[in-house]
């Protein structure tokens, strides 16, 4: 079976790739990902505010502790070698590029224009094959209109594309009023791929302590339906790469996304639960399924269940919703 696929023009040996997660903080893990058949790796996200916070911590400690007292010129050894800012992340890109052949995609989560531009430029220089931008933005300001929010996204993409030559993927949130049109506009702004979807970690309350709880849940396979819907709807209509990244627990979800039209399918939760070697299992199961179904390559079945390729495209639209509701009476 030919498992090869392309994503934003990058040649991949498998459509299964590792989404941004802390597993990629260690180069050894990235090597293991490739050894177990990952098509590519999206590195863990670089959060601009985290970098700023670290810079502030470092600068604060250095200034508070340097030459402040005659008996102690400083306190912590090695601060000269302490890399603040993006340097550590860039080092991770360089190390990963040295050790693996599969594409290494940097993931950037910025908050300022300056951050987006500066950091993406440096990521490209460090050798990243592509950049996935993670625009985690909740328009909490109720004075902000939908067009303003959309403009923000498009503006970031345009700026990035003017800054770097490598492909840029945009990891989206699912809450645009007109997701299809927005996807098209993002493509026109220069996006090379759309990634469905970013999971917003929504808060919970602790009613005894009166504090906000920010615990994290892994995605579940039941969550694939929304991205599945949008990939199936957009496949073939918006000419860029499509990536799926929610709820992938096994080869079953991989197959579903590919059937909907995804170029690549990303997973992290399954690796946290089952370990990195699980990539091999997923690839094998995908391979077995293709064999069973008689597909000898991925392109042979990609998108065959998308809206444009199935006999009843209304299944993806309002009619489908009514049918479902009627079905549960």
């Amino acid at each position, binding site marked *: 079976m030919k498992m090869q696929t392309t994503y934003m023009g990058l040649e991949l040996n498998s459509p299964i790739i590792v989404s941004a997660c802390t597993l990629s903080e260690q180069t050894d893990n990235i090597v293991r990902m490739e050894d177990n058949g990952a098509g590519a790796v999206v590195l863990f996200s670089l959060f601009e505010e985290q970098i700023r916070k670290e810079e502030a911590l470092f600068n604060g400690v250095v200034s508070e502790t*340097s030459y402040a007292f005659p008996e102690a010129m400083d306190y912590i050894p090695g601060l000269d070698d302490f890399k603040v800012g993006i340097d550590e992340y860039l080092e991770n890109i360089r190390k990963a590029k040295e050790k693996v052949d599969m594409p290494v995609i940097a993931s950037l989560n910025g908050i300022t224009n300056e951050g987006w531009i500066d950091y993406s430029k440096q990521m490209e220089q460090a050798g990243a094959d592509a950049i996935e931008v993670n625009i985690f933005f909740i328009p909490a300001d109720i004075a902000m209109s939908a067009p303003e929010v959309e403009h923000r996204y498009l503006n970031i993409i345009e700026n990035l594309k003017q800054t770097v030559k490598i492909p840029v993927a945009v990891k989206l949130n699912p809450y645009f009023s007109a997701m299809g049109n927005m996807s098209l506009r993002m493509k026109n702004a220069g996006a090379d791929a759309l990634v469905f979807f970013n999971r917003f970690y929504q808060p919970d309350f602790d009613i005894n302590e009166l504090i906000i709880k920010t615990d994290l849940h892994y995605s579940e396979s039941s969550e694939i339906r929304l991205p599945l819907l949008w990939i199936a709807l957009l496949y073939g209509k918006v000419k860029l790469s499509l990536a799926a990244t929610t709820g992938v627990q096994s080869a079953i979800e991989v197959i579903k996304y590919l059937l909907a039209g995804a170029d690549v399918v990303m997973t992290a939760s399954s690796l946290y639960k089952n370990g990195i070697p699980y990539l091999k299992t997923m690839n094998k199961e995908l391979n077995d399924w293709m064999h069973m179904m008689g597909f000898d390559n991925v392109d042979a079945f990609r998108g065959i269940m998308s809206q444009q390729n199935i006999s009843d495209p209304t299944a993806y639209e309002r009619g489908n919703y009514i049918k479902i509701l009627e079905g549960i009476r």
Partner: protein
Amino acid sequence: MSNKNKTVATIDGNEAAAYVAYRINEVCAIYPITPSSTMAELADEWASKGIKNIWGNVPDVIEMQSEGGAAGTVHGALQTGSLTTTFTASQGLMLMLPNMYKIAGELTATVFHVAARSLAAQGLSIFGDHQDVMAARTTGFAMLSSASVQEAHDFALIAQVASLRSRIPFVHFFDGFRTSHEVNKLELLGDEQIKSMVPDDLIFAHRKRGLNPDHPFIRGTAQNPDVYFQGRETVNSFYNNTPGIVEEVMNDFAKLTGRKYELFEYSGAADAEEVTIIMGSGSETVEETVNALNRSGRKTGVIVVRLYRPFSLAHFIKALPATARSIAVLDRTKESGAAGEPMYQDVLATLVEALQQGKLKKLPNIVGGRYGLSSKEFTPAMVKAVYDELKKKQPKNGFTIGINDDVTFTSLEYDPAFKLDESEWRQGLFFGLGADGTVGANKNTIKIIGENTDLFAQGYFVYDSKKSGARTVSHLRFGPKPIRAPYLISKADFIACHQFNFVEKVEMLEFASDGASFLLNSPHPKEEVWDKLPGQIQKQIIDKKIKLYVIDATTVAKETGMSGRINTIMQTCYFALSGVLPKEDAIKQIKKSIEKTYFKKGPKVIEQNFKAVDETLAHLHEINYPKKVSAASVNLLTVSDKAPVFVKEVTAMMMSGHGDDIPVSKMTVDGTYPSGTTQWEKRNVSDLVPIWEPDLCIQCGNCAFVCPHSVIRAKFYNEKFLEKAPEGFQSAPINARGFPETKYSLQVYVEDCTGCNLCVEVCPATDPGNRNRKAINMDEKEPVLEKEKKNIGFFENIPWNDRSKIDFSTVHGAQFLEPLFEFSGACAGCGETPYLKLLSQLFGDRLLVANATGCSSIYGGNLPTTPWAKNKDGRGPAWSNSLFEDNAEFGLGMRITADKQLAVARQLLLQLKDELGEAYVKEILDAPQTLESELVLQHQRVDGLKEKLRSMTSSAALHLLSMADQLVRRSVWLVGGDGWAYDIGYGGLDHALASGRNINILVLDTEVYSNTGGQSSKATPTAATAKFAAGGKTGGKKDLAMQAISYGNVYVARVAFGANAQQALLAMREAEAYDGPSIILAYSHCIAHGYDLKNGLDQQHKAVASGHWPLLRYNPVLRKKNQNPFVLDSPRPSMALKDYAYNELRYKVLTMTNPEVADKLMKHAQDLVNLKWKTYEELATKKASDFVPVA
């Protein structure tokens, strides 16, 4: 042959010496002590980076538990043939003395590098003089003295070579701080040069003398009266040969480098009549002054002593001009009761012997004098006074210079106006704060100028004694010739004030020369600056025709993304204004330096700094000021009229920077000072202070509990008091039912606040309508300052609450106890001081504290003002610091006195029962003293007893009167850090615990040597970095709690006030109540951990929640009651260790410098946490009989 490829560097004396020592040794056994710590730190850092010695191997650098331990290790390594060294000072050298005798007696080649420092006598001093090395002069070590940074570098090599050749061990020393910390330009020795001085055959011979089972011998025998004496005399020829060997090595060195040294180096007139003899950095001052005096027609000279031991008569006589009529020997030491100071006696004996041998025709007039103790300034004016004294027919012997001794009249008068020609120098003074980057920027400036131009550079940095809001003064000189001026700048052509509020606090322009430039960092617009200056500053500017420049560096820093760091900006201003370098060239050099400094931090940081440099020039303005004074003068000496006379006359002088002018007669004779003087030093360190919101406050007392500086205090009182309250004094009904007439007030001592924010962080009460508003919030001080001063005055008149009516067992109750530890100089947000404050609140009026040297002894006992205070009855903690290593024994001694005198007092009471009345005596003897109410009653009884005894005349009555105070139960606490408890003082601590006596030990565990700059101790946890553990601590943290528990009869607690204040309070009280030894291990967050200390409480929570710091109590009383004495007070760990640890740079830095090791160590550390928890959990569920029974 001189070296054509000279490498110049601008480094300090410590680095200069360590640079060579590291390269010519295989083993360094180290231990931190100021001012030598840097040498050891550098050796450790270089080894961790794999830097090799001249033989291509990385020296083995090992930190020991004390200097005694380091000396033992050095001895052992030497005896087995390693080239071994150590670095130390002061008390450290004292601890090495026993081994030094052994090393010398066995003719073992080694060099100890010493940054010479005062010894603790009437008080400790970290500063420089020769008391320590003089105390080592009897050990048999040769002693070679460096007088400058270059010499510290050169003599490190000369000493080593001479030691290997002579087999005599050497102390190579230079003046602490003045040389160890002075940055100066020097020529570095290349590795090949060093190697050429150390022939292999000397190394082979050294190794061959080492112990080796392949050809065994015995060394270190015990000897008897028959041979010991002769044995001691066998070494004579080696000592006789040493001066000649040193001379040869110095000659070889001169051929190699062009730098010529002599054992006794004479300079001055060939026919000098007045000659001084001096050793160390002061010699440069004397030499330069001699040159100036001789130019004016005087015939003076000076002999600089390089090789002090063995003292060579032949070389000394050769150096001394035959014309010398009058000689002054200047000793930088004090030997009370001696016929004279050591070098004076050496010179005297030498000259008499030379006379007797006919090598001297006539004995000159010889006097001795003392100078420069504890880095006291030694200036050309003082030198001139010495030569003037020598001109007299009968010069004063045993004189002092530099002080005013108005008691025994030893001091010589001098004219401070006398100065050498300073016209070739550019001299700058920079006034800053410890944390504002001023010193760092100035060190950088020296590097730029020293290493990139032909100019010579010198930098010396003066710090005050506080750890929070400490002021720094940087003294920078540049000139075309080597700068030989080891004294402070008194006339500067450039003065920079990096903190605007200094204009009202610090005298700066008295040091300005006429026409000098004054650079002021000002938040005020340039048009308004003039009117913001106090009158006296305006007058000085006008009178001296000073050029005034201003810049709002803080705003420029913010606008250029420098996070408020002003160092680069102020440095750029200096280059732009001083003219030391052409402006364009200077800017180019600054940028080059920025690129070099921030290379590893990435282009962004470099760009930011470049931007700051460029913006600086656009924002720097010269002020055309009016030629008349427009503002009132402010009083720089602001001690309240209410202060005691001593504080007004003496302490205030020190506070204002005029301590040098205090005469001997004003000083206390035995190091005794009044308690509680910090209250008179309103330091106003923070612009932000807590503001109390009575309507939101739930009166929990948390803020008062955690405040490190005792700035927040609470009282409850009858509402009638409010009738006289000043306007704006805040109060609230007390939140206890049934007391409608009782009010509660929380008072913030705003002038003493350091702005740490812990009170806000701990406050649990928030405004339901505004979650950002708490019951206490930080806000601008200026608008409330005057109002709060009045409020404080009123609050102080409200009586402290009756201790017998306060519930001591709760944090809520503890807030009403008067703190008798207040306003210390500890760091803002200090994690140690809340424990000490609590100690003073709970037991203060009967408390004895033995305090180990370290942070707590510095913020607890460093002059000018000290924080241990007393209450309205005049009672309060009696505090003392002996040494670092002996504190447990010192405290145990206090307990023994208490026990002994109590026993005698009880015996005398019984003896006097007929006079005093049997029932009365019985009442005193049998009085319970557990509850506070009982202690109050006993205090009253003892007061009554003393009243009666005063009217009695019998010997027994008088003896009882002198000891009656002991009839109130004494609370003896042994306090110190982990460096003391886990390392240097552990043997004594262990013995004190084993003594069974009623002592209480409080270990303020910061997990590092905080005071000396963050060196690793045995309390440092696995995976953390620290100095001497730069690659991450691999071993585990010692479990001192379990060691103490193993005795069975020791009360043990591990507490963290930020995680569980109630448990900490309970443990303190239980420990004190327990009639036996107790130890409390108190988690103390610290600046050395590397994070913003406002998060200190949160980190304490995480330390406990992660299992790093399980809270526990082991109470032998429970064991006696047949209950499990081991109580685990914290729940099972709920978070990973790394989630606690990686909030701190001490852990985090390793993930950057060596991620693989960091990961491995963190996993190991987590395993250790898991294992420890498992053990504790098992102990907590065992039966009483599973534990050691208490006798």
